[in-house]
């Protein structure tokens, strides 16, 4: 009777810890662990079995990590791969590195997309600017137009010159897509790396 309560208690914790998985996968895992624990109870080894499985959270984690990595790899989409890296980042160094690298590329993609949209909405505040002397290049949006409407006071430095005009829209769109694809590829590469490291072992 006490063993039955111990098993139910363990399975309740396991089911709760597996809630990130689809119902069918979760129920299957819980049913199999139940069969395992009941079998071990028959052998008088319930305590050893629970000790070997680990706490419900730890037991669930090994299933979830495997499934997240595989689902992300099979799906290949930016959302699932990035989501998997995000979930695993706190526990796996490879995922942390992958999250950082992918995030940089996705932010660049978002930045270019925003700049392209800004060129449509407020063309005077967005552009690809080139400094008059140093040749420095800036791209993005600015609160104050770099090319003022009013004449410059004598001696004032010449403002940067915007060189792309409306071509900024296709340029920003292209760069946004490029960085998005690079971000997606990099997140997939890190997921693949984790699969390689993880796949041979379950020890």
């Amino acid at each position, binding site marked *: 009777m006490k063993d039955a309560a111990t098993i139910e208690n363990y399975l309740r914790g396991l089911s709760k810890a597996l809630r990130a998985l689809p119902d069918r996968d979760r129920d*299957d*895992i819980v*049913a*199999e*662990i139940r*069969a*395992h624990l*009941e*079998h*071990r109870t028959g052998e008088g080894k319930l305590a*050893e*079995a629970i000790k*070997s*499985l*680990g706490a419900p959270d730890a*037991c669930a984690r*090994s*299933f979830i990590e*495997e*499934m997240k990595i*595989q689902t992300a790899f099979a799906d290949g989409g930016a959302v699932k791969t990035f989501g998997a890296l995000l979930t695993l980042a706190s526990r796996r160094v490879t995922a942390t590195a992958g999250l950082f690298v992918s995030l940089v590329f996705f932010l660049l993609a978002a930045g270019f997309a925003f700049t392209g949209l800004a060129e449509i909405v407020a063309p005077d505040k967005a552009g690809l600017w080139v400094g008059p002397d140093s040749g420095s290049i800036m791209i993005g949006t600015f609160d104050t137009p770099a090319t003022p409407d009013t004449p410059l006071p004598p001696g004032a430095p010449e403002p940067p010159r915007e060189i792309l005009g409306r071509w900024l829209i296709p340029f920003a769109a292209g760069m946004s897509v490029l960085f998005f694809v690079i971000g997606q590829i990099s997140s997939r590469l890190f997921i693949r790396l984790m699969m390689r490291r993880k*796949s*041979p*072992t*379950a*020890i």
Partner: protein
Amino acid sequence: MDVETWKSQLRKGAAELAVLALLETEAKSGIGLLDALELRPEIGLSDGSIYPMLNRLEREGRIEGRWRTPAGGGRGQKLYALTADGRAALKSMRAAWLGFRDELTMIVGEKK
């Protein structure tokens, strides 16, 4: 030197090969596999590690799990069998392992 860490590295991959090989001739449950490996502690599989591995192998399509209830009733169990992909993987892994073992043995030598 930390031999346990080195052994843990050595076991990587070996456990998967052992499981696939044990399923080659007949379907087995997680308990059945653990029982078969009970006298092989160096393989390193335990109650806690076998089910995530079986779960992964099943999702990779190398094994197929089916629930079976004994004819006379009683506790059901999930039995795993190799799929065609699993058999092909086992064949490749076995050839790779045998080559690796032979070459390493030539370098390291037999037990002295």
